């Protein structure tokens, strides 16, 4: 079966080469095989003598590893082909995500797969310097294939306190800031020198319950918490205008997000009855954990944690202590399902598809809420491979209803989010997806200064998850597709990615004449090697920053050779 598939792929590649070059190429395929008992390595190279281009291939060796990508092949210098193990209707939206940025293959090799502070891309800005603890300085790429920035320099700085960021904005030392404090919004609105820009980002704030730890291993206890917390009160008290109480995990602006029964009403009596049934009528002790990081979905974590603590005590006689956890530790531990109490977390959409919310939290490989539920993960897996949204709708409905029944988390709010800027900056925007495109901001000066809420983890975003890193990386490195400021998906480094009929093969033509900041030309091997670094766990380029490669793992359903 594997060899048949390989043969088919090879023939498809061959046919394209013939079509492209007009004569029959003499291929030379080199396959490296590991020692007996080990898995087959995944790189082969095909030589096109007509152009002397040696196309790189990322070959998973078949779909048995459980992931989504079968092969990724550089058909010629300007064409790559993704062969998937199953249809993926969200493919374009997924590959537009910033973590799939393309860097020169030579640069990835030279840095050992870890260009953590010296990324090279094709974006509207090139990295000048990263002054640790202070700022990242970027210079405008005058050869950019898209709109070239009117300013010469972009400086991205950071301040963890929203009051500090507002002060910088009010003082005129910042042209824009992220995450203005909720209490600061009226101040900004009232200031004619400033502009408040709504960021229509789909997000969710939820109370995570890991179902493998007692007492939350009892479904009745989870359902009691789901009904015993007044979520509307939390939204009304702590969230900015434009926020709403969540009836489903996924915001309803996304197709198929809100099929099925909406969330439970606030009903203390029903919640108490469930606790009585579970033998916990007198309450119990638990822990509420959160991280003190500004996010659109949770603007004041400490206040919300304190209110949930008070509601648990008042409504259900549950004594909760509050524990603030360092941000990266919190993400790591919650992802592993280590938390025995309630953890306060949220999600901001990465790409415009319901899979980005549901599959990343309730899919078959996700352990954040303990062992995945088959009646949630199963329908999600089926739905994810159906191209027609109407056909997929019943499966998402099943999944939503199962989530409601099992309560692996309690969805609380979909929050309004904002960016603030100096008034009068042409092109100032805050897109729903992806990062701000600062090259479209025209402040009429040589330098544009933007304050975000934290320093980037690294500038190699293939292996980063935080928005602060992605915002900087997105100015430097680009992906095959990208999100427009309105939220649509449009070609980026690819001029087009065309699917076959069943959406399992996507052939991407690269944009002509694009060069990296180091002057080298973009070609198909750069694409293959950039994906190989992220996806192939056995590749020497699979180094990264944290080594977790979260997005590659979950968007492609698992890493190749990860075992």
């Amino acid at each position, binding site marked *: 079966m594997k060899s048949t598939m390989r043969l088919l792929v090879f023939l498809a590649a061959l046919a394209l080469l013939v079509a492209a070059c007009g004569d029959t190429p003499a291929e030379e395929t080199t396959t490296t095989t590991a020692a007996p008992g080990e898995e087959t390595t995944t790189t082969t190279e095909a030589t096109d003598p007509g152009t002397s281009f040696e196309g790189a291939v990322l070959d998973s060796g078949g779909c048995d590893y459980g992931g989504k990508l079968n092969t990724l092949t550089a058909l010629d210098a300007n064409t790559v082909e993704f062969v998937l193990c199953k249809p993926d209707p969200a493919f374009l939206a997924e590959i537009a995500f910033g973590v799939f940025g393309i860097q020169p293959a030579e640069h990835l090799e030279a840095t050992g797969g870890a260009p953590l502070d010296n990324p090279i891309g094709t974006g509207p800005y090139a990295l000048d310097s990263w002054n640790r603890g202070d700022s990242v300085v970027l210079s405008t790429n005058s050869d950019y294939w898209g709109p070239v920035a009117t300013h010469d320099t972009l400086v991205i700085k950071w301040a963890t*306190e*929203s*009051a500090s960021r*507002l*002060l910088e904005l009010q003082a005129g030392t910042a042209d824009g800031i992220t995450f203005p*404090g909720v*209490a*600061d919004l009226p*101040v900004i609105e009232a200031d004619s020198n400033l502009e408040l820009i709504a960021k229509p980002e789909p997000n969710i704030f939820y109370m995570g319950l890991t179902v493998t730890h007692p007492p939350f291993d009892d479904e009745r206890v989870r359902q009691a918490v789901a009904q015993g917390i007044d979520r509307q*009160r939390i939204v009304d*008290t*702590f969230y900015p205008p434009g926020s709403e109480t969540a009836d489903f995990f996924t915001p309803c602006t996304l197709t198929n997000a809100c099929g099925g029964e909406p969330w439970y009403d606030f009903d203390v009596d029903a919640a108490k009855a469930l606790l009585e049934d579970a033998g916990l009528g007198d309450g119990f002790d638990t822990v509420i954990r959160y991280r*003190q990081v500004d996010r659109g979905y949770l603007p*004041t974590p*400490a*206040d919300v*944690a*304190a*209110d949930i*603590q*008070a509601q648990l005590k008042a409504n259900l006689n549950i004594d909760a*202590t*509050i*524990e*603030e956890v360092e941000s990266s530790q919190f993400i790591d531990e919650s992802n592993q399902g280590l938390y025995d109490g309630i953890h306060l977390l949220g999600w901001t959409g990465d790409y415009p598809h319901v899979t980005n919310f549901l599959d990343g939290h309730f899919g078959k490989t996700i352990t954040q809420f303990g062992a995945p539920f088959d009646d949630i993960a199963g329908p999600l897996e089926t739905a994810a491979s159906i191209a027609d949204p109407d056909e997929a709708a019943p499966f998402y409905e099943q999944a939503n209803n199962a989530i409601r029944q099992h309560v692996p988390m309690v969805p609380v709010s979909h929050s309004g989010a904002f960016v603030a800027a100096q008034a009068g900056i042409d092109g100032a925007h805050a897109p729903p997806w992806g990062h701000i495109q600062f090259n479209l901001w025209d402040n009429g000066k040589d330098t544009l200064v933007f304050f975000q809420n934290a320093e980037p983890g690294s500038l190699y975003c293939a292996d980063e998850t935080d928005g602060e890193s992605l915002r900087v990386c997105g100015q430097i490195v680009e992906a095959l597709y990208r999100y427009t400021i309105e939220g649509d998906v449009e070609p980026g480094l690819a001029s087009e990615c065309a699917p076959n009929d069943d959406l399992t093969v996507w052939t991407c033509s690269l944009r002509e004449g694009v060069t990296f900041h180091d002057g080298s030309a973009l070609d198909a091997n750069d694409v293959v090697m950039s994906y190989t670094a992220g996806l192939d766990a056995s590749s020497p380029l699979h180094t990264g920053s944290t080594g977790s490669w979260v997005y590659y793992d979950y968007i492609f359903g698992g890493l190749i050779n990860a075992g």
Partner: protein
Amino acid sequence: MTVSRKKAIELLEDEAGDVTRLFEKPVGQWKLALRRFRGRRSGMTGLFIVVGLILVALFAPLIAPYEPNEILIGVEDVGRRDPPCIHVLGCPDETPQHIMGIDGNVRDVFSRIVYGSRVSLTLGFFTVTLALVVGSTIGAISGYAGGWIDNILMRIMDVILGFPSLLLAIAIVAVLGPGLRNALLAIAIVTLPGYARVMRAQVLAIKENDYVTASRALGSSTREILLKRIIPNALTPLVVLATLGVATAILEAAGLSFLGLGAQPPDAEWGSMLARERNQVFTSPHLVFFPGIAIMLTVLGFNLMGDGMRDALDPTLNR
């Protein structure tokens, strides 16, 4: 030859003026100190502040109009971070009175400040007591025994002194875990070398005095000499140090709570109240002003009182 008291006075007055006071009932050291303390305005101001705070802490349930952790959503028509409303100052009668405003969790700030005094004072007193008892014991043993015991104990104290106190407290709390009890322990540990060193210096000076030598010659045990002869005479500077130490301890506890390592939510503690609302310094300044003022007043009170006691107990400042 014997002379009457009256005759003696007459004779002495001829030589040295009014000497009747030579025959007054002797005044004790502490009584004299109290008399001198009363004469020092700053010390008395400090005492008033401290006594006031202690009364506030003791009668908090009577003074505070609300429970410190009571969330007023649905209870009163108040909003998150509402500014102070004082009826006599013109706030409309229909608006509920909250003289220090409402915090980010819709709780009455005044009630939390009042109850916060309990936390701060308890923490200050217990920290200093612990540090004083342990530190002065170490200092007394070290100073009296001398030799290798002195060397070992003092080098340990030097190591503790070598770290910036707040940094060491943070490290200790990081190991023990956040919480008021651990913050108390951490601050006690970082402050005890001060007491140990002062006690050691006092013991070294006092143990050479004739009355100690006499006591030893009469066969008193080491324990008896330390407890009856040396420590009572070494207490004066320690009392001053402890009074000033309460202020330091309260300040450090507020610092730890500000960093999230001391009091845990929903406990009303001034440092954590300040930390929680630090981003509202421009939009809702009352939320950082009142906890800040409370910390400042308490520290000022103990410092003034400590200074006054130092002056009162220092025999060289006798006038």
